[in-house]
């Protein structure tokens, strides 16, 4: 019998029946690892995270230390990436700024996920007026171009680390909410939900134990992509001096120094490195997100 099975497998070009033993997670990881760009993105992000977390060890200078004798020095001895107009070391600002930017992005995404998942599952599961109400609120938020309402809110709340997180988290949830709702609507029709209901499970149990695990993969993908989006938005708000406030460093507010013509033309070391960091990090995260999407929904990818 076993021999016959082996013959069958060989005929179909398979050595052994391996794929069937893998769980969904293992399969996903396997497919993900096949995507060169995504793996590369992972390595880059891990490297950046290590550098950023080890900031106190790597950096010689504190990011906020002002040194009047070393103003606007070009890269060289002592200061690898030169200094800014208060004599602060650009390299340590870059590393600590990475910390701030990433932290803002992760916190904002967590907020978005919380609002998006909770409201989306309420809307999808309960339907009727709960659904209409939540979706109309989401529509209202989607009626504004992101930066216009973000800038309004920043003008009301004032700049700062905490307010930036609040703004990004508060404005990012509607698209996630819509997605979660749509997924839940399609899952709700399945027989296993009917079975769960007839077993007498409560709404909460059905929602969190039976429905949400089935929605988890699109949520993971969009969470990854929204971290990239949050880094971009933070940088943009800080660039307009409406995000993280100087002297606290962030990649965005380092770039805002390039709004002065002198810095832009003569002092490349103050604005090119943070710009490149933003691009590299966002690009890597986008590749990871794309890789995850392909790995989790194999039909869309191949």
């Amino acid at each position, binding site marked *: 019998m076993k021999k016959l099975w082996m013959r069958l497998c060989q005929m179909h070009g398979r050595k052994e029946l391996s794929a069937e033993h893998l769980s969904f997670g293992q399969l996903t990881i396997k497919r993900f690892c096949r995507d060169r760009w995504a793996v590369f993105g992972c390595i880059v992000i891990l490297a950046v995270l290590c550098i950023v977390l080890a900031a106190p060890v790597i950096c010689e200078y504190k990011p906020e230390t002002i040194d009047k004798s070393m103003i606007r020095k070009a890269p060289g001895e002592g200061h690898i990436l030169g200094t800014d107009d208060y004599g602060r070391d650009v390299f340590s600002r870059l590393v600590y700024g990475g910390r701030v930017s990433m932290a803002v992005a992760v916190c904002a995404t967590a907020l978005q996920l919380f609002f998006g998942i909770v409201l989306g599952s309420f809307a999808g599961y309960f339907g009727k007026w709960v659904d209409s109400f939540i979706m*109309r609120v989401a529509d*209202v938020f989607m009626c*504004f171009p992101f930066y216009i309402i973000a*800038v*309004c809110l920043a*003008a009301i709340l004032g700049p700062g680390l905490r307010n930036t997180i609040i703004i990004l988290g508060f404005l990012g949830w509607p698209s996630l909410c819509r997605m979660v709702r749509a997924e839940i609507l399609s899952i709700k029709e399945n027989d296993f939900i009917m079975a769960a209901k007839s077993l007498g499970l409560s709404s909460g149990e059905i929602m969190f134990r039976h429905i949400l695990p089935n929605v988890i993969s699109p949520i993971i993908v969009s969470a990854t992509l929204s971290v990239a989006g949050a880094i971009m938005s933070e940088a943009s708000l800080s660039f307009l001096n*409406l995000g993280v406030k100087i002297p606290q460093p962030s990649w965005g507010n380092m770039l805002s120094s390039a709004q002065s013509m002198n810095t832009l033309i003569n002092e490349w070391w103050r604005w090119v490195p943070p710009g490149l960091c933003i691009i590299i990090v966002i690009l890597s995260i986008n590749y990871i997100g794309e890789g995850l999407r392909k790995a989790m929904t194999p039909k869309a990818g191949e």
Partner: protein
Amino acid sequence: MRRYICKRLGVYAAIFVGVTILIFGMMMAMPGDPFSGLMLDPSIPPEYIEQQQEKLGLNDPVPIQYIKWVSRILRGDMGFTSDGRPAAPQVWAAMKNTFLITIPSFLFSTLIAVLFGIYSAIHVNRFFDKAVTLLTFLEVSIPTFFLALTCVKFFGYDLQLLPVSGLHSLTGNLTGWAYIQDSILHMILPVSILTLTQTSSMLRYTRSSLLEVIGQDYVRTARAKGLTRKQAILRHGVKNALLPMITIFCMRLPVIVSGALFTETVFVWPGIGMLNYNSIMGREYSIIIAIAAMQAIIILMTNLLADILYMVADPRIRLGGVKQS
């Protein structure tokens, strides 16, 4: 079909109320009112201030104030800036400048996105397609202002090729043809940046939506009837692939009016985005609110337009076959 329209209109009315309440709430949350300065001045009698407040309706209950405000906004009355000038003319003037860069970039980007998207989907996985995919991916990951700053430095200063700030040169009074030429030179960089930033997402959308269609049965049927792959895609595929593009197209329309905050800020282009930024820096709340309200209303209208266009284009909705959620 009539029921569908009525339902959609109801939804839009609800959203409109929500949007205006949100903006009104933001306006109430913004610090200061026109009389906070006068109250401190002992030479102005408090009765006068009260009289004026009464006249402007600042003492009305909040719902009444809200209704009055909505009716003013709908009539195009945007209030006054802190120096006493009406806000509306400033907004309209900025809007004209914004149109100068947003309309060309909108047209260019739509054209490029659709043409390149179709070409890239037909020749999927060839060199051109791969290059385009990589470039669009790269483009989404670059902050607009960084791209713009790099262009300013490279084209404006290193090569001394193009002017990088303002509407036209400050020196001399150019007239006639020279004036137009000067303006066009100033438009090149902002328009290119805007075009670039708008193209990539739409290009990716065109490509993936066409790729989806190519796998459909009716394309195979068309090929079975003797059309070449290209003919089948161009005659049968594109039409269907462009249907969902209506939504994307309409969603992008508001960009024409909202301008580009970052492009305008970097190139010192006196449009809506720049006005918005300056108002925030100068705490001109009436302008910030006016711009937000205008944007929201325009987006609402384009969404309605998208719905209507979709209905006209898609017989499944027109004939009521598809249940709308």
